[in-house]
């Protein structure tokens, strides 16, 4: 029964993918969209069933299908583990997934390759589910790389534009750098414990007496590198903003709500490993904090609506890692969930805007859309409030918990996190003001066509806005359902809840004030003062640095890409030809000897006989006179 359920869960999206790939074109756009959506919806229903089962029994379900890879000391099954964590992830993956599928039916309706879009989305869901429910690291890795592939396919969905293809390629390769880390981490763990299975691993680690801690830390570090790649942390974050080249639903689903949280999932999954590696945890926290700050500063000046959201995503992910670094896995998970709601909503909203403006993404050419697109405006406003940490929206609770945790562990990191939060509030409302208020700054043509999007687009927005508002309820401070639910996963005392004392309330207040401050600045700057961002060439000073993302892409290009390319050229033009010439050279030398030899063969009998006699003398004298 469980096996069947798990298989239905996994295979339905795959089936959707196959149907769409092979028959999508002939089925027509609506049908293929419907198939895609239904496939994910079925998975969602199954997830609900499983959720029900888990909450009632409290035990995870282990499903083993068959042996997959055999290695001398470790045997890897293709199996699934359905426990609290995975089912939780399943719920929002398939849930938000269904919504975004629904949204896409309308959004992508004008695209000739719509069936492919749905095929890829389904494939993505398939891999994401595999990632989440895999019972060991290697099955996770299937999903891990699989979602990377889908990300590649979907970023480069409009394949005629080579810039988009470049972005897709970049995403894939950066992910792969992380994947190598993940693989190495797996190798170390595999050789240490002879298993990659979560359950066995957990018993092995918790039961072990004298662990090789440095080695385990190394493994944890490697795993974290993997997480960095997938969840866009420094130094591997640059792919995510570029990934906005893909259609907006993709950005919402993959690059905001689900795939990028895989790193957090993996770290949470292996919490028992990371708990033992304190140095690595510190590294995670620091990197998370820095990422969130850096991304937030860049987000301050971006003018592309999706870029702003992308940097916001990176920043939020950084916050989650900050939490992970302190061992507060449940906090990070909580933020993952709330973030999935409001960020998906924001992306879909921005998609709605872009859709309404026929592809315009530059906020400098927007403005005043509030009236034309009220539903979009309101849902986005709610989500912006949520992300800014305005009280009683979901983001308020989750972000606050992270900052609280940070405060308890490290004041500097708390400061960094808080600054990032303030900035978040600022740039989010900068976005809101630039987009929805004032007068429309686009062309007349666009203005003429302004309209609210269709119901297939607005319904998901509304649902997500509701979730963004009330999502915080699952883990209220002091009475957290989530913490209890996740407790069986963690070795440490399940979610040491912060007692709500004065400090906590003070900090809450500071956070709220910070958020409001950000909003206020944005209000003054972009609503009151009627500023709006300069065109590209007029940006100067610090803004220019920020606008150009600290020139990180350029630095990477100069430090890694260009050297490899020139090395490649050097190898191709010199080493290869040199080696080749060496081999040919042997032949040439022999040939040259032959050429000289031909001159000795002069045709003169005298010479021939002379050599004859000399040879004879040499032989005779060597044999008889040598002694």
């Amino acid at each position, binding site marked *: 029964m469980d096996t069947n359920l798990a298989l239905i869960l996994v295979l339905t999206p795959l089936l959707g993918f196959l149907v769409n790939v092979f028959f999508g074109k002939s089925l027509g756009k609506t049908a293929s969209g419907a198939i895609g959506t239904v496939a994910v919806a079925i998975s969602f229903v199954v997830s609900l069933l499983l959720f029900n089962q888990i909450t009632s029994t409290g035990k995870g379900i282990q499903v083993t299908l068959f042996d997959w890879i055999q290695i001398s000391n470790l045997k890897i099954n293709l199996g699934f583990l359905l426990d609290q964590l995975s089912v939780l992830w399943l719920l929002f993956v398939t849930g938000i997934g269904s919504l975004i599928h629904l949204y896409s039916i309308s959004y992508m309706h004008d695209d000739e390759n719509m069936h492919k879009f749905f095929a890829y989305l389904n494939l993505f869901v398939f891999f994401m589910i595999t990632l989440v429910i895999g019972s060991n690291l290697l099955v996770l890795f299937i999903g891990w790389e699989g979602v990377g592939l889908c990300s590649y396919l979907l970023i480069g969905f409009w394949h005629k534009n080579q810039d988009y293809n470049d972005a897709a390629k970049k995403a894939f390769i950066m992910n792969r750098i992380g994947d190598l880390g993940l693989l190495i981490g797996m190798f170390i763990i595999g050789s240490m414990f002879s298993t990659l299975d979560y359950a066995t691993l957990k018993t092995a680690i918790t039961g072990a007496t004298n662990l090789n801690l440095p080695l385990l830390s190394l493994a944890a570090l490697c795993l974290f590198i993997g997480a960095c790649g997938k969840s866009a942390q420094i130094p591997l974050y640059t792919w995510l903003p570029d990934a906005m080249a893909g259609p907006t639903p993709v950005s919402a689903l993959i690059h905001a709500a689900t795939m990028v949280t895989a790193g957090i999932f993996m770290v949470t999954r292996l919490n028992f490993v990371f708990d033992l590696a304190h140095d690595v945890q510190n590294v995670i926290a620091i990197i998370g904090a820095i990422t969130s700050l850096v991304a937030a500063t860049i987000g301050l000046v971006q003018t592309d609506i999706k870029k702003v959201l992308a940097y916001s995503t990176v920043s939020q992910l950084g916050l989650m890692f900050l939490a992970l670094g302190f061992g507060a896995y449940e906090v990070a998970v909580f933020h993952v969930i709330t973030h999935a709601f409001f960020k998906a909503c924001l992306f879909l909203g921005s998609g709605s805007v872009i859709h309404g403006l026929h592809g315009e993404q530059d906020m400098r050419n927007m403005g005043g859309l509030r009236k034309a697109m009220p539903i979009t405006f309101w849902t986005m406003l709610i989500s912006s409030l949520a992300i800014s940490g305005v009280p009683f929206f979901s983001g308020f609770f989750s972000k606050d918990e992270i900052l609280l945790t940070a405060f308890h562990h490290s004041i500097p990191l708390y400061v960094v996190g808080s600054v990032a939060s303030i900035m978040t509030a600022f740039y989010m409302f900068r976005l809101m003001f630039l987009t929805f208020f004032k007068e429309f700054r686009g062309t007349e043509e666009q203005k003429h066509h302004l309209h609210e999007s269709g119901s297939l687009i607005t319904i998901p927005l509304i649902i997500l806005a509701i979730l963004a508002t009330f999502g915080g309820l699952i883990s209220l401070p002091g009475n957290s359902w989530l913490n209890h639910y996740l407790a069986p996963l963690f070795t440490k005392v399940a979610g040491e809840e912060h007692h709500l004392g004065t400090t906590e309330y003070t900090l809450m207040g500071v956070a709220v004030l910070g958020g409001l401050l950000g909003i206020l600045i944005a209000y003054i700057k972009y609503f009151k003062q009627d500023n709006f961002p300069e065109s590209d060439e007029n940006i100067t000073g610090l803004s220019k640095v920020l606008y150009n993302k600290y020139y990180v892409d350029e630095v990477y290009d100069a430090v890694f890409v260009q050297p490899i390319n020139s090395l490649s050229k050097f190898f191709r033009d010199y080493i290869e030809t040199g080696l080749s010439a060496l081999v040919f050279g042997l032949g040439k030398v022999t040939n040259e000897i032959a050429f000289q030899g031909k001159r000795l063969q002069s045709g003169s009998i*005298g010479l021939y006989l002379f050599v004859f*006699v000399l040879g*004879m003398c040499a032989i*005779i004298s060597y044999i*008889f006179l040598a002694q």
Partner: protein
Amino acid sequence: MIHIPDFAHATTVQVIFCFLAFITVITAFLTIFSRNPIHSAIYLVICFFSIAGHYLLLNSQFLAVVHIIVYSGAIMILFLFTIMLMNLNEQREVHRPRITRLGAIVSFCLILIVLITIFINSKPIVGEYDSTGEDFQSIKVLGKILLDEYMVPFEFASILLLVAMIGTVLLSKKEKLNK
């Protein structure tokens, strides 16, 4: 070691041997150095006669006679005939590079020195040369050996001559070309 003849007490045989050897070597050299092929041929004939003298000295009269007939007679006539036929008597050799001569002299010296050294180094033959007293080189004995023991080679030599004959004919025969 080289057995140096004691000239003061040289026996007749020794004197004859030295004389003949001298003639042989000198005429052989002259054969090579003569500009005129006819002269060369004449010197060669003298050389052959001196060799026949050696044969006589070694008491093999039949062989000496045959030698004179074959070499001085047949072969030399063949040479002379050819020289006449080609009208070569006054032909000067065209440019003969010094390097060739040098090479020839070097190899001559070399091979001579090597061979002589080896034979000098070899164990000398000591004691008397045995003389069985039996007749071993009269025509009678030779005939017996040649036609009895060495019958097969004798017959086989005929094939050799046959081949040479066919060959010579083949090389000189004119034919109608029916191309």
